[in-house]
């Protein structure tokens, strides 16, 4: 809520009641809030970019409140039920929080408004009442909106809509959820063309892209929302922890820094300790408590904990009863949980936008600076933190450009339209192209996706009789039966969870206490009796019962911790560039810790420093093997792809590589032959992105996983049937078979195309690798060494900790088979 001094007088004046309310609070409306009212009056769509604490939410709602105040004055209880404003946020918790905050000005001004939320938790009775009697303002999520658009008479519900507000728009737009939302917005705008749109965000890197994403696109041209900017807040203060202990060469535990971190928590009012993965959250929480002599109230918050557990922590935060909360990205977004005055980032933030977003969690006041402490967990992360700190000082945001909309989401949307009031293909095509992510969609692709939705889209026309969608005589496409529509509605959404199991602590007798959910793959690694950390406790695995992992509390001090899955977010391209700049230029080393400076100095003496535009490749022997290490600084995903392609290529050259390992900064490949004599320009040529990539992808497990997600989102595989739910295991198994068969007979099927696009942008980061290979072309410097270089140590330390790629399916069977032979040959 605003607290700033007077803004410049604006051309638009607020109605008296609003002006009085601001005055009574000792405030004045901010410039950007007035601008939002002006934009709405002019019928314009607007993107509001304002820092946290800048009155952004009120800026979004103010035009609606003014409008509604006029309408409802003296209208009494019997005024008609018409939906005026739709508010969409990525988190249901955020909808609830915003609804609560909105009630303050509404009640204080004595406005008689109907404000309601609709989330997955809303009861059936309330949903039905909302349909029959819409509130003035409805706060909801993208999935609920998709569900709405897939029901009959949705058009009537939205017909009177005046305004659509999308909060944290930067978080939604780049995801598949954003594709789905933009399609649903396109639909709603057909039904309610008078509704204007407002997007709200604190951290926007690609302003133009988002301003375009927000608005309806006319055929053959680009349209953009008006950009309204809030005043910048005080510059954040970012400090990098220079620990008393030695900074590790590799690893992500951050143990060496926790003594210092604990002292900072002690000195702060309330600290948020952000980490990048759930397992790191568990570890950090455990280690902080191990040294918690002062018995500070420190809590844990991450996405796998049960909702009840999380609600408890959130409530304690809001009431100021906690000293620190160790959390993952679950607390990244705009919920205001009390008086945080310090943000601690364990490990590198991976992107400057993410860091700025997290900084916004501290100190929700514009005039006081947010304070952050970065605690890098290893030497490379120290460099990354320095790059992020410089970026924050310049307020330089990063973000990947928005990509074209995915085809699996398009299929889901088309089916959804058929499950509602139906559609005409021609009109739907135009409607879809008015959504920015699909503005370039061609008619042939649309027709193929429509055909996929209706019959599976196979050249072999087997399913004509069993269509899911039928075209009626009047040209409208509709779901063939109400049952098909019902099944569709049970499967709406784009979030395909990894298969999860409940973690249940066995009590005395039957039953037990549910702690949260954990990935099935993790549980599969456990043997009964194994211990692991979850929800801040050491647990002993007992066994699996139906869909839950039964555990007991264990007294062990040294549990088997969930294996670290690498940074959950890859290092952003932008920060990677900055890190390369720092490494290359000793003039920039001044701000670095002495330990890190010495390390780089040693690298310069023993080998050379990687240069910013080129690629450093080192080769050296070690323990009867030959190694090649290169430093592209492009993030783990792109590096895994590069490692896979390099090994394939080396195999073809007869170099017999044995394996590779990748981290965020480097790739190491090893084998029995010396690689120093290779033509490195040829080895790293970008043409590896052609045939090698295709051949590898076809068999890749990553590709199968991507295909599974696309198949689920597109509706080929249903997650839920009435009365039953498929377990993750069954889905995984059958989609692999489907993938193999489809690839054999219809390699250009639209769903395989969707999966390829996804893999290229997601798990394989192909675009980024391609750009990197182009950048370093002709600038590869090879250094032949007689031993390992200082810079190579971190990635070499990962060997044995990370799965080694290229070790196959069959080698595991071979080992097991050898066991049997050994047993058969045993003499006793």
């Amino acid at each position, binding site marked *: 809520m605003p607290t700033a001094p007077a803004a410049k007088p604006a051309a638009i004046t607020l109605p008296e009641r609003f002006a009085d309310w601001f005055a009574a609070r000792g405030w004045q409306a901010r410039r950007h809030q007035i601008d939002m009212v002006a934009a709405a009056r002019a019928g314009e769509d607007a993107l509001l970019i304002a820092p946290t604490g800048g009155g952004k939410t009120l800026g979004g709602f103010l035009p609606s409140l003014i409008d509604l105040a006029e309408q409802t004055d003296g209208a009494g209880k019997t005024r008609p039920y018409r939906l005026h404003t739709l508010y969409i946020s990525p988190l249901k918790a955020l909808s609830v929080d915003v609804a609560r905050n909105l009630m303050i000005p509404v009640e204080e001004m004595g406005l008689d408004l109907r404000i309601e939320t609709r989330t997955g938790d809303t009861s059936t009775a309330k949903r039905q009442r909302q349909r029959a009697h819409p509130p003035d303002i409805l706060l909801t999520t993208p999935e609920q909106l998709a569900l709405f658009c897939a029901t009959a008479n949705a058009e009537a519900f939205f017909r009177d809509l005046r305004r659509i507000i999308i909060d944290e728009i930067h978080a939604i737009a780049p995801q598949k959820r954003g594709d789905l939302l933009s399609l649903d917005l396109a639909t709603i705008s057909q039904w309610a063309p008078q509704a204007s749109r407002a997007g709200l965000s604190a951290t926007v890197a690609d302003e133009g892209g988002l301003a375009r994403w927000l608005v309806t696109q006319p055929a053959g041209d680009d349209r953009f929302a008006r950009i309204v900017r809030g005043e910048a807040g005080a510059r954040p203060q970012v400090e990098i922890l220079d620990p008393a202990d030695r900074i590790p060469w590799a690893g992500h535990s951050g143990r060496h820094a926790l003594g210092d971190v604990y002292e900072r928590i002690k000195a702060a009012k309330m600290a948020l300790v952000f980490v990048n993965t759930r397992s790191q959250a568990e570890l950090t929480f455990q280690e902080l408590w191990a040294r918690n002599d002062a018995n500070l109230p420190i809590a844990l918050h991450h996405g796998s904990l049960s909702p009840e557990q999380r609600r408890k922590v959130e409530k304690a935060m809001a009431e100021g009863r906690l000293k620190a909360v160790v959390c993952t990205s679950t607390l990244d977004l705009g919920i205001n949980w009390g008086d945080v005055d310090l943000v601690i980032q364990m490990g590198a933030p991976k992107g400057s936008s993410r860091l700025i977003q997290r900084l916004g969690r501290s100190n929700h006041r514009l005039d006081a600076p947010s304070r952050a402490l970065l605690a890098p967990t290893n030497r490379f992360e120290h460099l990354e933190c320095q790059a992020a700190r410089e970026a924050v000082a310049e307020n330089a945001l990063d973000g990947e450009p928005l990509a074209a909309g995915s085809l699996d989401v398009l299929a889901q949307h088309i089916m959804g339209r058929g499950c509602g009031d139906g559609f005409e293909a021609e009109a739907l095509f135009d409607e879809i192209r008015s959504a920015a992510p699909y503005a370039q969609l061609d008619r042939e692709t649309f027709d193929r996706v429509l055909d996929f939705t209706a019959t599976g889209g196979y050249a072999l026309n087997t399913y004509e009789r069993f269509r899911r969608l039928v075209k009626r005589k009047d040209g409208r496409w509709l779901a063939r039966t109400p049952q098909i529509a019902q099944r569709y509605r049970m499967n709406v959404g784009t979030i395909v969870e990894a298969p999860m199991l409940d973690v249940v602590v066995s009590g005395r007798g039957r039953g037990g206490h549910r702690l949260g959910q954990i990935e099935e793959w993790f549980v599969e690694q456990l043997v009964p009796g194994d211990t692991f950390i979850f929800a801040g406790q050491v647990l002993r695995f007992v066994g699996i019962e139906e869909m839950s992992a039964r555990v007991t509390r264990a007294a062990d001090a040294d549990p088997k911790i969930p294996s670290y899955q690498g940074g959950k977010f890859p290092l952003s391209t932008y920060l990677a560039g900055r890190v390369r700049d720092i490494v290359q230029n000793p003039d920039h080393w001044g701000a670095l810790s002495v330990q890190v400076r010495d390390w780089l100095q040693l690298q310069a003496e023993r080998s050379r420093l990687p240069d910013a535009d080129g690629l450093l490749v080192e080769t050296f022997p070690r323990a009867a093997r030959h190694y090649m290490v290169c430093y592209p600084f492009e993030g783990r995903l792109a590096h895994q792809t590069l490692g896979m392609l390099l090994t394939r290529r080396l195999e073809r050259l007869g170099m017999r590589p044995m394996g590779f390992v990748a981290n965020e900064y480097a790739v190491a490949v090893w084998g029995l032959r010396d690689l120093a004599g290779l033509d490195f320009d040829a080895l790293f040529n970008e043409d590896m992105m052609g045939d090698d990539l295709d051949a590898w992808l076809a068999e890749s497990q990553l590709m199968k996983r991507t295909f599974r997600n696309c198949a689920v989102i597109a509706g080929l595989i249903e997650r839920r049937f009435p009365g039953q739910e498929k377990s993750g295991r069954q889905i995984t198994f059958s989609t692999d078979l489907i993938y193999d068969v489809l690839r054999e007979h219809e390699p250009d099927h639209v769903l395989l195309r969707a999966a390829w696009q996804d893999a290229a942008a997601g798990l394989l980061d192909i675009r980024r690798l391609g750009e990197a290979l182009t950048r370093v072309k002709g600038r590869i410097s090879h250094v032949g060494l007689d031993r390992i270089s200082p810079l190579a140590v971190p990635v070499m330390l990962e060997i044995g900790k990370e799965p080694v790629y290229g070790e196959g399916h*069959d080698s595991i069977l071979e080992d*097991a088979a050898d066991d049997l032979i050994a047993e058969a040959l045993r003499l006793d």
Partner: protein
Amino acid sequence: MTDTLADHAFTLAGEAAIADADGVLVLPDHGVLVVSDLHFEKGSSYGMGGQMLPPYDTRTTLRRLAAAIARHRPRTVIALGDSFHDRLADRRMDGADVERLADLVDGVGRWVWIEGNHDPAPPPQFGGEVRHTLELGGLVLRHEPTEGAAPGEIAGHLHPCAKVRGKGRAVRARCFATDGERLIMPAFGAFTGGLNVCDPAFERCFGAVPGVLVMGRARVYPVAAKSCVPDRS
């Protein structure tokens, strides 16, 4: 690719037997090739219910079966039941696939369809003879395995799969389940799933978790029961 498949020779109830990495069993002394649980048109049976799975599983299954027959050149082929996913499967089958299957049956000396629970009456249009069980020397071939001891029995129905752990990961693959006295065939159909050999159903037949011959990419790996793990453990 199929030319390089390596086979695994072993003895089953005193008879010579060969397990092939693509999932067929050869009894060389009888000139017999056994294949089980083809489940033709499983994909389109889902399609009828609104899940439009690729209607190509029959085609893939037929291609692999034709390759196995060409590789081993048997005098007799025995399809060990559940060859057709349901009673209407042959009517949904694409014309080209109908022709391929008929040609395949026609091309070997003797073709036997064993009755399965999915296809208690295999369709007559493809030729071949229909049997409930078949005896071959000391061997008995039927679809559903008998509970308790049944030396010399070759059956299908259970779709055995083995999960083997190693190197921090696990592999789950189709397999032959055998204790040297009796055998349960892997399912051959392209869309058939599998039942872990640690399931009690196998214990009821073998008295314990059986040893397995696991189908790797190009080879069959014999793996002891103690190296097999349940799906969720």
